[in-house]
């Protein structure tokens, strides 16, 4: 340890220091922020329209005018990849947020009260695990999409509601062990209420695990959404949809390779950086790591 740091450091500050030292995680974070900024800001600032068609300029390969080429309707692929990224990233974040919210509260309550409450709650999770999740997602999407076509909320809900199961299990296990820790017992003996113990003493000690798992959940949600789009169940322009379109025009006579490659590269890079970040976070928040 160097001599110039402030004398008081919270466990989170220490974890952050370890994270910053991890090159893979830092590179991943940089790449991801760059990509996010580009996807969010560029279309807004340059007033780019992903559905602007120019029938004369159909299926052009990448050039200095159209960096990523154009598609079968003469739309600029670069713009479409950026706007699609906005959807994919938003879906990833929002669905993860839904599943974290549901999973953490569910798992925390089950683990904290234990016994029969835990038993009943976790059996429900087991049951839902048993259901084919893709089937569930499709069901939820169909249920909602009757009323709200083109709305992204059903996607968040559908993906969030199938992803929370693992989160609930993880949090429940953690809370179960923390429950027996002496500082939780001590808080109880000092007269703290259940809610207070849970929020103030138990959950902060689980945050590390939650953060790591949530980071790793974002890419899997993005993939799920891409898969849905690929199946034609997507609701908006996203990377998954672009890949799907790209695959559709691959044929032995003429290959419009750029239509498949660009969205795939962006999707892949995003997933890669998220995994790097998650990995770095896992190392940094490992309670046994002490530097």
């Amino acid at each position, binding site marked *: 340890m160097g001599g110039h740091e402030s*004398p008081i450091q919270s*466990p989170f500050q220490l974890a952050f220091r370890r994270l910053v030292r991890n090159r893979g995680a830092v590179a991943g974070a940089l790449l991801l922020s760059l990509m996010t900024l580009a996807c969010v800001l560029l279309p807004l600032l340059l007033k780019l329209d992903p559905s602007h068609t120019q029938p004369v300029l159909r299926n052009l390969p990448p050039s200095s005018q159209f960096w990523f080429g154009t598609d079968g309707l003469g739309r600029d692929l670069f713009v479409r990849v950026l706007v699609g990224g906005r959807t994919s990233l938003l879906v990833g974040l929002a669905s993860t947020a839904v599943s974290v919210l549901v999973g953490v509260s569910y798992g925390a309550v089950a683990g904290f009260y*234990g016994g029969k409450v835990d038993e009943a709650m976790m059996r429900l999770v087991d049951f839902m695990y048993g259901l084919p999740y893709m089937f569930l997602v499709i069901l939820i999407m169909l249920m909602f999409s009757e009323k709200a076509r083109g709305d992204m909320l059903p996607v968040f809900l559908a993906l969030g509601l199938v992803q929370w199961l693992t989160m609930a299990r993880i949090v429940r296990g953690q809370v179960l062990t923390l429950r027996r820790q*002496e*500082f939780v017992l001590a*808080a109880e*003996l000092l007269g703290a209420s259940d809610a207070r113990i849970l929020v103030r*003493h138990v959950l*902060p*000690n689980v945050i590390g695990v939650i953060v790591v798992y949530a980071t790793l959940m974002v890419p899997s949600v993005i993939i799920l959404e891409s898969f849905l789009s690929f199946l034609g169940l997507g609701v908006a322009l996203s990377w998954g949809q672009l890949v799907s379109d790209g695959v559709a025009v691959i044929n032995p006579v003429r290959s419009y390779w750029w239509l498949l490659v660009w969205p795939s590269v962006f999707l892949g890079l995003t997933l890669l950086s998220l995994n790097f970040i998650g990995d770095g976070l896992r190392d940094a928040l490992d309670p046994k790591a002490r530097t």
Partner: protein
Amino acid sequence: MSEPSAKDALHVRDLSVSFVTRERSVRAVDGVSFDIEPGEVVGLVGESGCGKSVTSLSILGLHEKSAGRVTGSIKLGEQELLGLPHSQLRKIRGNRVSMIFQDPQTSLNPYLRVEEQLGEVLELHLGMQGARARQRMLEMLKQVGIPGEERLRAYPHQLSGGMRQRVCIAMALLCSPQVLIADEPTTMLDVTIQSQILDLLGGLRKDRGMSILFISHDLGVVAELCDRVIVMYAGRIVETGRSAELLEQPLHPYTEALLKSTPRVELKGGGELHPIGGLPPRLTGEKLTECAFAARCPRVRQGCRDGEPALQSAAPGRLRRCIVPVTDMLVPP
């Protein structure tokens, strides 16, 4: 303070705790009775699993979480603590009865600063916040031997084991409890820190007239701090008495054996240690049909297996659960 300043004694009467699982039930504590007067330090000793901790936890109503069944009576002054609703019990915990634990590594929340941990107690019980609370925390920390404001901002991992235990003690004492339960508070500390903590507890007892229930399996520590000692074996009390007398001349073979197995500086008789052979009885069945210690007792004789002896007066201020004549106990087995 809102609570009455008159010191109350703690009366435990016929306390039994059993844990019932699907397959069997275990009587961890069986008919335990004792009193702790204001300002008195009572040691509770016995080997692991003899019911020391279960006894102390049930005083604070913590057994409820582990499917324990508790009968008997636990009174603080005039107030019955057993069967008190959760909300009432919360007002007593940390306020009139406090507890410190064995392992200072795990008894502080790693994510809270010292001031946050201490402040929680003040806020919960006295509604005290801000500068006044801060002032009080500083005083309390000074009393337990941690001077300096910067320690308030420290996280547990920045404190040594001894300091953490002091913080735990400070936390337990913030509301000036009448009774402090100390569950092996020095077991995990090294010897120099151990004696500091013992001095601290002894001093607090003197200054505040606080009663302490001191749980330990270390007879040396008990001799140093406690006025009276209660020896437990297999969930029951086997001997009680003033600590100096009891440790000088045990009147129950179990206490005797326990003493012989404890290393001491002034050990007589060649300095050999004698472990107690065998294991304590399983407490799963019904009432015992013989003395619980009979199977391991070096003084076992006729009559020991005919039924469990009652806890009877053996000398002034001494109770024991044994049929061996007192005069026989004075000579080695």
